[in-house]
Structures are given as structure tokens and as C-alpha cells.
């Protein structure tokens, strides 16, 4: 994991090395200052030597200037390295994700990928930038201050060693418990927020069933539980700062007592005593800093692991060594195909055998979960088969260059997305260089032209993120137009007209027949009316092809098909007009 992430530092390596160096410089100069101040008091004030005072004051000012310079450089470079590291992590992750196959994406889930690219990266950035500055600063501050203390008076320095050990033990014991307690609280806290979220979105159910009191009672209990957990977790942290003061105060008193003896015994000067007191604070503060750093690093370790997972993941689709760059035609052959989403899972599809001629229109029906979507996703090689092969245009799909294949097989997915931008921009996803006329032609075939032209801005209408400002039916038609612009060999519609009304759908089918007869079309649908005039219809049941034939043949031979047909007859299925 560290190696994977370490590689991403790249051009920020120099900054990453210089940052701790400057931080060390800052510490060094800062720790010398109290030493100088001691000399000022002993040799200047005590002896009444104003010249020495001035001399030391200038030295201290010089030191402060040096410290300022190192501090400035260290912090500036730290910010540079931290932000740069985050920048590289995001870029590498994003590029890696682009090479992912569908099954890689499924493995992480889209929400998971988004979190990794955003929240996890900021966590790591914070820890990295802080670590660069503190990892050296805190321990070296501790060591240098301790060394100075020993230099002045080993006897007093021993007191500090004792205090540091006590504090260290406390940190080692308390920090992990605290971190654990808080993690527990935050999980519960997330649950609480989730239940609020649920209530907000289901408010109509709550009100319809008059369950306001019930929900309030449930929430009150949860809120009280959170309170208890928080109080429990924070009780421990409440000990922390008073305990720290206790150690500091104890040290000061011990130092005062011992110091007085030493001064009286002539082993120590008063100036040195004040410096020692300053070092006391520095030592104990850097201990606390180390503790904090430790917590931060452990907390960001989980994020770092999640990022490394993304970077280390290899796409499970291998590009061929000598790829084919041309898809000759739109014929499709399934040859003894078995398929499962994960190697050892149950087979989703088993022993599929099928031949589809170029230019044919094929309907595909079957219950949810029967394997329709899995079946079509094998054609553009979104997934690889477990056994057997899929051939497109006479070649095994594994022989094609993936981009070539994806461009030749246009697939309109069940869950389809539009992107923020104008309609033209969205359509040109299919073909960057498409002219306005070509876009309009595709929109006309997909029966989208009519509603687009009704928009005040026509094809320049801005689509919001996720396509929220067009209706479901409109969105589906835009997605089909976008796919058509690729001028593919094969067009696959995975339940992509469910929100389009039956009449419009009929017009679309007619346009398909007349305008794009050469394209092989595979249409998955719930409504029989969407597929009944296809050249052939496949009925898939439980991962197997249960029937394959024309509408009339299937009505006779396939009981499944016949029963679906029966349940939908008596008009055209439903009343809605595609949500317009």
C-alpha cells in the first residue's frame, strides 16, 4: 500500500524531502532562543551588562528571522507537497478507473468510487501534509529541547524525562481507546442521520399512516442513545488536558525545588532556570503533537488503503496483442456461452447457442433476473464469458480492439445517463464530429426531434446534471439518438423505451426499419408490443434460451411467451404517455 501511494509523489518528491528539512531548521533555531535568553539574564541582567543584553537581543532577532524563513519555507513546501500529492492521487485514480471493466466498477460501486476520489483523498492529503511538517518537527523539537535541557543541567533534565515518559504512557493508553470510542459513536451517528434521511423521503408514508408520534419516539430513543455514547467517549478525553496540566505543573514545581537547590549550590544560574522552564513546555507540547499525529495517521490509514485498492485494481478485460480494428458486419454468434459475474458464482447464463444475422431485428423478453441484460452485455464485451465464445462480425469479441468494438456496438443501457451540457453536446458523445444535420437526423429517428424543437432553445437546451430537466421518456429517446450517432453495426436497447408511450414507440420502430435497415437491432422490452414485429424474438428463462422464433411461432410454441402476451392484451398495455 505504502509503495503504491509513494509512487504518486512524483514531481513533488523534492518538496516532500525539503519540507522536513526546513521544519528541522525551524526547530533548531527556535530551541536555541531560550538558551540565548538564559545568557541574557545571567550575563546581562544579573551582571548589569547592557552591552551583552543588546548583543544577545540582536542574536535572538537573527535567530527569529532564520526561524521565520525556515518556518515559511517548510510550511509553504508542505502545502505544495500535500496538495500536489492529492492532485496526483486523484489523477492516477481517475485514469485507472477509466481502464476498468464493468465488473471492476461493480466491485467498487459508483458511490464507493466517488468517496474514494473525494473524501478519502482529502483525508490522506491532510495526514500527508501534516505528517511532513510534524513528523520531523515534533520529535526533533522533543530531542533538541531535551538535549538543551541536558546541556544546562542533567539533573533537571531527568525530571523532564520522567514527565515525558508518564505522558507517553498516558497517550499510548488513552489515544487508541478514544479513537475506538469515537469510531463507534460515529457509526451510530451515521445510522441516526440515515433514519432522518429515511423519514424525509418517506414523509408521505409517515403522514398517511399517522405515524408521526411513533417516528418521534423512535428518533428520541436514538438521539438519547447517541447522547449516552458521546458522553461516554468524551469523558475519557475530558481527562486529557487536565492531566497534561497536572504533569506540567508537577514538573514546574519539581524543577523549582531542585533548581533552587542547584542555584544555591552554585550548579545553576537563575537565567538557566527560566530557560529550563521554557524547555519544559516545549518538550511536553511536542509530546502532545506526536500523539495527535499518531491519531491522524491511523485515521487516514483506512482512506489510504481504499485509495491503494483503486490504484492496484487491474482491469479484468485483457486487450488482445494483435487487435482487429474493423468490425465487418453486424452478425452475432453465441457459441456454448456460460456466464457468471464472478468466477465462482452461480451461472447467470448457461450454454447459450444462437445466431443472429446482420441487419436483423431481435426482440428479447423474459422475467427480471432471467439474464437478459447479462446476455446483451456480452456482445460489446462489457464482461467476459466464463466458457464458450461470442462472435461479432465473424471474430471472437476478444480479438477486437476494445474501443473499436464499443464504437461498433452501441448499447443504450437500462440505467442511462445524460451529462450536463446542451442537447447537441450530449448527442455528440456518439460522434464528436457529427454535423448539426446528422444530430438532427439521429434525433428524428429516435423520435426526439419533435420535443427538442418544442424547447425554446431547441438543440441548444441545457441538460442538467443527471438529465433532471427532461422527462423519463425524453431522456430515453435522447440516449437512443446519441447511440445512433455512432453509426454502429449493432444497436442494443436494454429496456430503453419503457417510459416512451406506445404510439411514439411504434413510430420509432418504423423509423428503425426504414432508416437504419443495415444495423442489427436487439431490443429488450417488458411490453410485448415493443417486440412483436421483430424478425425473431428470444425468450430467456432462468439463464437459458427457452424459445426463439417469430411472434406467431412463439405464441404457439412457448407457454411463457403466450402467458406474458395474454396478461398484456386488451389494448396497448398502459395508459401513460411517457411521462410528458
Amino acid at each position, binding site marked *: 500500500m505504502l509503495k503504491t501511494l509513494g509512487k504518486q509523489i512524483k514531481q513533488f518528491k523534492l518538496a516532500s524531502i525539503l519540507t522536513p528539512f526546513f521544519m528541522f531548521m525551524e526547530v533548531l533555531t*527556535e530551541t536555541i532562543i531560550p538558551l540565548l535568553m538564559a545568557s541574557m539574564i545571567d550575563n546581562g541582567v544579573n551582571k548589569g551588562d547592557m552591552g551583552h543584553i543588546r548583543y544577545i537581543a540582536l542574536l535572538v532577532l537573527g535567530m527569529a528571522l532564520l526561524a521565520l524563513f525556515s518556518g515559511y519555507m517548510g510550511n509553504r513546501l508542505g502545502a505544495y507537497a500535500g496538495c500536489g500529492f492529492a492532485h496526483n492521487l486523484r489523477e492516477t485514480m481517475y485514469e485507472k478507473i477509466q481502464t476498468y471493466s464493468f465488473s471492476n466498477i461493480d466491485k467498487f460501486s459508483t458511490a464507493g468510487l466517488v468517496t474514494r476520489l473525494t473524501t478519502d483523498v482529502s483525508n490522506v492529503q491532510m495526514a500527508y501534509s501534516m505528517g511532513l511538517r510534524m513528523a520531523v518537527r515534533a520529535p526533533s523539537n522533543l530531542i533538541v529541547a531535551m538535549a538543551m535541557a541536558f546541556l544546562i543541567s542533567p539533573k533537571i533534565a531527568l525530571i523532564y524525562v520522567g514527565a515525558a515518559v508518564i505522558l507517553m504512557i498516558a497517550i499510548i493508553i488513552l489515544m487508541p481507546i478514544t479513537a475506538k470510542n469515537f469510531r463507534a459513536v460515529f457509526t451510530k451517528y451515521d445510522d441516526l442521520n440515515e433514519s432522518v434521511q429515511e423519514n424525509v423521503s418517506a414523509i408521505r408514508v409517515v403522514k398517511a399512516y399517522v405515524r408521526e408520534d411513533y417516528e418521534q419516539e423512535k428518533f428520541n430513543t436514538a438521539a438519547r442513545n447517541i447522547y449516552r455514547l458521546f458522553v461516554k467517549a468524551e469523558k475519557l478525553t475530558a481527562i486529557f488536558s*487536565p492531566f497534561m496540566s497536572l504533569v506540567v505543573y508537577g514538573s514546574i514545581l519539581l524543577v523549582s525545588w531542585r533548581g*533552587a537547590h542547584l542555584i544555591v549550590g552554585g550548579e545553576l544560574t537563575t537565567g538557566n532556570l527560566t530557560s529550563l522552564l521554557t524547555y519544559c513546555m516545549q518538550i511536553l507540547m511536542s509530546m502532545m503533537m506526536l500523539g495527535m499525529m499518531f491519531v491522524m495517521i491511523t485515521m487516514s490509514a483506512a482512506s489510504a488503503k481504499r485509495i491503494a485498492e483503486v490504484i492496484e485494481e487491474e482491469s479484468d478485460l485483457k486487450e488482445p496483442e494483435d487487435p482487429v480494428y474493423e468490425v465487418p458486419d453486424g452478425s452475432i454468434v453465441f457459441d456454448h456461452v456460460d456466464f457468471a459475474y464472478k468466477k465462482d458464482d452461480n451461472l447467470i447464463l448457461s450454454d447459450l447457442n444462437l445466431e443472429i444475422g446482420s441487419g436483423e431485428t431481435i426482440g428479447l423478453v423474459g422475467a427480471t433476473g432471467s439474464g437478459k441484460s447479462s446476455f446483451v452485455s456480452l456482445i460489446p464485451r462489457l464482461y467476459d464469458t466464463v466458457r464458450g465464445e461470442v462472435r461479432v462480425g465473424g471474430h471472437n469479441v476478444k480479438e477486437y480492439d476494445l474501443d473499436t468494438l*464499443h*464504437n461498433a456496438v452501441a448499447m443504450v443501457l437500462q440505467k442511462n445517463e445524460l451529462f450536463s451540457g446542451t442537447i447537441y453536446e450530449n448527442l455528440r458523445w456518439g460522434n464528436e464530429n457529427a454535423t448539426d444535420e446528422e444530430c438532427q437526423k439521429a434525433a428524428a429517428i429516435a423520435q426526439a426531434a419533435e420535443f427538442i424543437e418544442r424547447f425554446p432553445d431547441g438543440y441548444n437546451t441545457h441538460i442538467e446534471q443527471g438529465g433532471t430537466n427532461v422527462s423519463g421518456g425524453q431522456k430515453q429517446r435522447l440516449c437512443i439518438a446519441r447511440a445512433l450517432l455512432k453509426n454502429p453495426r449493432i444497436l442494443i436497447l436494454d429496456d430503453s423505451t419503457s417510459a416512451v408511450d406506445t*404510439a411514439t414507440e411504434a413510430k420509432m420502430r418504423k423509423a428503425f426499419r426504414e432508416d437504419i435497415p443495415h444495423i442489427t437491432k436487439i431490443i429488450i422490452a417488458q411490453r410485448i408490443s415493443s417486440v412483436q414485429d421483430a424478425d425473431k424474438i428470444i425468450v430467456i428463462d432462468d439463464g437459458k434460451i427457452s424459445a426463439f422464433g417469430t411472434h406467431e411461432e412463439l405464441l404457439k410454441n412457448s407457454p411463457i411467451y403466450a402467458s406474458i402476451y395474454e396478461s398484456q392484451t386488451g389494448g396497448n398495455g398502459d395508459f401513460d404517455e411517457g411521462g410528458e
Partner: protein
Amino acid sequence: MPPRRQIQKVKVEHPWKLLGRVLGFVLKRYWLHYLLVLIAIVVSVYASVQGTMFTKTLIDVYITPLLAAPEKDFAPLLGGIKRVAMFYGIGVIAAYLQQRLMIYISQGTLRDMRIDLFDKMETLPISYFDSHSHGEIMSVYTNDIDTLRQLVSQSIPSLFQGVIQVVMVFTNMIILSPYLTGLSVIMIIVIFFVSSKVSGAAGRFFSSQQRDVAKLDGYVEEMINGQKVVKTFAHEEKAIEGFKQINDQLFDSAYNANKFANILGPINAQLGNVSYVLCATVGGYLAINGIGGFTLGSLASYLTLNRNFMMPINQMTSQINSVLLGLAGAQRIFAIVDQEPEADEGYVTLVNAKINEDGSIEESEERTGHWAWKYPHKTSGVTEYVELKGDVVFDDVDFSYRPGHQVLYNVDLYATPGQKIAFVGSTGAGKTTITNLINRFYDIQDGKIRYDGININKIKKNDLRHSLGIVLQDTHLFTTTVKENIRYGKLDATDEEVIAAAKLANAHEFITHLPQGYDTMLEGDGQNLSQGQRQLIAIARAAIADPPVLILDEATSSIDTRTEALVQEGMDKLMAGRTTFVIAHRLSTVRNADCIMVLEKGHIIERGSHKDLIAKEGRYYQLYTGNQAKSETAAA
């Protein structure tokens, strides 16, 4: 994804009034706690200042005389140390008490605030949820409550502590040396000036960083959600290009913001050192010449005090932004708490009824299976009991969600008990709106709706809703077991009743096939179920409530055909014997309805039975025969 903390320019109206209200809320419950905290703060600050002053005493009173004295007697020193140790001890105890009490205050306040907020939210009218996005409401619970916690548990006490510290330290500084104090004050002003310049620059870059972060998040969210489309369109390189551009921008702004924020630390520290050495030099001069009784001990103490003077001032300035953030959060919280709850002037209630042989109705304590409306007539003082039958009348109803955008016009309808009324028409014609009026999710502007002859405005909303069962088009389930989700319709239902309802809704079979059957946990709105299955559970939930009137919004989205047949059957069984309003999308549902209402742009344009309407050859006929091209032109 946890929400990102927003670093933003905050605008708060009437900040003092708001702060007063927050404090009022806290003090109402925790005034004693807070008072004790304040006392504890004073004590611990006093103790720590006394501790600092001890350095002077140590040097001037004990060490210097000891050096001169022939007999080295350490007993007075020991006494002095003991006295200071006592101070320290008290200080530590006070600090601990302060921390401990603060936990109760801040967590208790948050708990009460959350509960108040949620309790209020549950009473808000549906229109509130229409006009506020879910994200907006959620962010009050997550972000705003969090910033409030910061305000109550850290900012306010640390401001108070800062003020006390500054006052005490300042007093002691003046006592030690007024001249040096003047010098320190000048240095403070310099530090203030420099750090406000630097943090101003940091602030500007932080807001552009915030903007770029939002941009990157937006891009990532959109593109990763559409990643499968990106893949199928071989658009990877363009996606990377777009990403790089935003990523580079974010790097620039983040670097600048962090740079300025980071260097503030060393600048302040070194200016502090400068102040220290200046004081030491001048103090040394004063001590050498004995001006104003300034001694070596005084100098040592003064130097520490000077440090302690800077610290609280730095801390207080850093709290100002979080105070503003906290107040902005409080403002949004109070905005919800101050919302008007759903109004309810109803006084007619639903009671269990016993129907006597002579047809008269009596109120009953137990569940009798019969229900009646208890109607206390205001004018005559007579209480009348009306049997709950499920007779619904719309009389010339007009409705608009927003003024000026009328949705329903002159709607008349009549449903006798047990009838099935179907609404058909395009999306946006007003079908769902009508059903929302029956249970008073919204109030009508004109006309009357009567339920068993009673104006529904006179019926208490809760009782009205108890008498209605609703199955919504988009099903919402809760994060709990299947069993509890069904029981939501009737909280005191036995397991047997739950199973019976599931059987009625055709849900029993698939539920028993779930890993833990009825005890299977549903998560994230029932994500682990198919849409059809979720709908079956929603039907079971309505079935167990056993209401006399049902409102069903059929699902349009593609459920597979087998499940759809099950859903259909379940709904049919549920509808039997009840007054039902169904928003129909499937023909089979409509055909056997007693009355079909065809809606078009808020008007009922046709009504009648299936046979009547077919014979009429109007809009319904067009819809039914699928001859929609013609009707679309007619509608347009």
C-alpha cells in the same frame, strides 16, 4: 459520503439576538452546569496565572535571599511550593470539572436540539418538503448541528476563558511593569495587523478552493455515475481530459489557500519571539537600573506572562469564524423549529363503535371492527355518531399548489361505499393531486370535500388519515425487518396478522424465500428487494391497516411480468369491499372500475363506466384503443 465542512463567507442577521437565543436554549436546561463551568474557568485561569507569578516569587523571595544567607534553610521555599501546589491542584480539578460539565451541556443541548428539530419536522405540512430539497433538510441535521456543537462546547467557553485570561494576565503585567505592558500591547497590534493580512489572503483562496472542490466533486459524481456510458461510448480519454483540467485548477487554489494558512503559524510564532526579546531587553534595562522596582524575578515572570498574553488572543481570533459558522447553523436550525406546523382545526374524531339493533350507534372502548365519526355539533352541543362507511364526495373543488398555477378546476365526484373509482389521463393531468386532497396532504382553495357527509376540514387530520390506506407509486420502506415494515400499518398487530396481510398481498411466498424470512433486515429503502417485491410489502402494509377507503397509485415502471401479475392480484384482493381510488396505468385495473374519471389538464373531461366511455368514443376510447396519435394532437 460525509458532508464536507464548508469554508465560506457567512452572513448572519441579528447575530446578537441569535446568540442570545442559542444561549437561552442552553441555559434553560443547563444554567447550573454553565454557571459552574464559568466558575471553574475563573478558578483554573486564576490558578495558572498564580503559577506563573510564582517564578518571580521563587527567584526574588526564595532563591536570591538564599544565595545571600549564610544558613541555607529551604523550609520557607518548601512552604512556598506547597502553597503553589495547592493552587495548581485546585486549577487542575477546576479544569477537569469544566471539561466534564461541558460534555453534559454540549451533548445534552445537541440531543434536545435534534429532538426538537425532528419533532417539528414530523409535524410540518407536505408542502414544506416539496419546497425544500432533501439534501437541504439533511444538511441541517449533519452540518448545522455539528457547527452548533462547536459553538456551544468550544467557542463560547473559550471566548470566555480568553477574556478572563487576558484580563488577569494584563492586570498582573501592569502590576509588574506598566512600561513593558505598553510595549507588549504595541507588539500585539503588529501581530494582529500582519495576521489579518495573511488570513485575509488565505480566506480568499479558501473560497476559491471551495469552489473548485465543489466543481471536482460535481464532475466526479456525474462522470462516475455515468461511467458505464463513458465506457460504452469509448469516451475515456475525453473524460480524463476534463478531469485533469479541474484537478489542476483545484491544485492551484488548494496550494495557495494552504500556503497562506500554514505560514500564519511561523509568522505569529516568530513575532511572538520578537516581542519576547524586546521585552527582555527593555526589561533587562529596567531591572539593571531598578526602575519602578523591577527585579530579575519580575522579568522572568513578565516574560512568561507576555507569552500567556498572546496565546488567548490568538485563540480568540481563531474562534470568531467558527462562532459565525455556528450562528449561521443555528439560524437554519431555528428556521425549521420556527416553521408553522400543519394546521388542524378538525374536531370530529374517529372512535370504535357499537351498532345497536335499532341502528343507533354507541361509542365503545374496545375494538369492535366498526368505526364511527364522533361529531360534536358546536351550535347545538349535541354529539352525533356517524358510521364510517367510506362515502366520498368532491363538490366543485379547485386547487393550486402555488397561487396562480391552478392544477384542478371544478372537480366533482361521488364515490359510494365499496365503489372503485379509477383516474386515467396523462402525467401531470392531476390524478395524484386528487388523491392528495382526500387525505389532506394539501388543502383545497375552493369547493368542498365530504367524507360520510362530513366536511373533511372538520375531521381531525390524524383520524382522517387513519381511515384511509395509501399505496404510493414510489414505495418507501424503512430500515428494519420485513415484519416491522408490514406492521407499520398497525403497530399492535400480531405476527399472525402480519402473515395474513402478507398472504393477502401475495407477498408471503417471496418473503419466506428471503434469507431470514419475515425477520430479514431491509436496508436503504429496501434496496435488497426488487421493485415489485417492495410494492408487495407496501400493499401488505396497507392491508394490515384494514382501512375502509383505499388510495392506490399503480406503479408504471417496468416490473417483470410475473411479479406484476402478483402485484395486480394483491391489489385486487385488497380492493375488494372497500371504497377505492386508483390511479390506473394498466387497462385491466380500469375495466372493472365502477366509475372512470378521465382527467386532462386539471379538468374531468369524461366520466362513466368502461362500457359507457367506449360507447362514447371520446378521449377514453382513444386512449384505450391505443389510437393516441390523434388524441395527442387534440390535447395539444
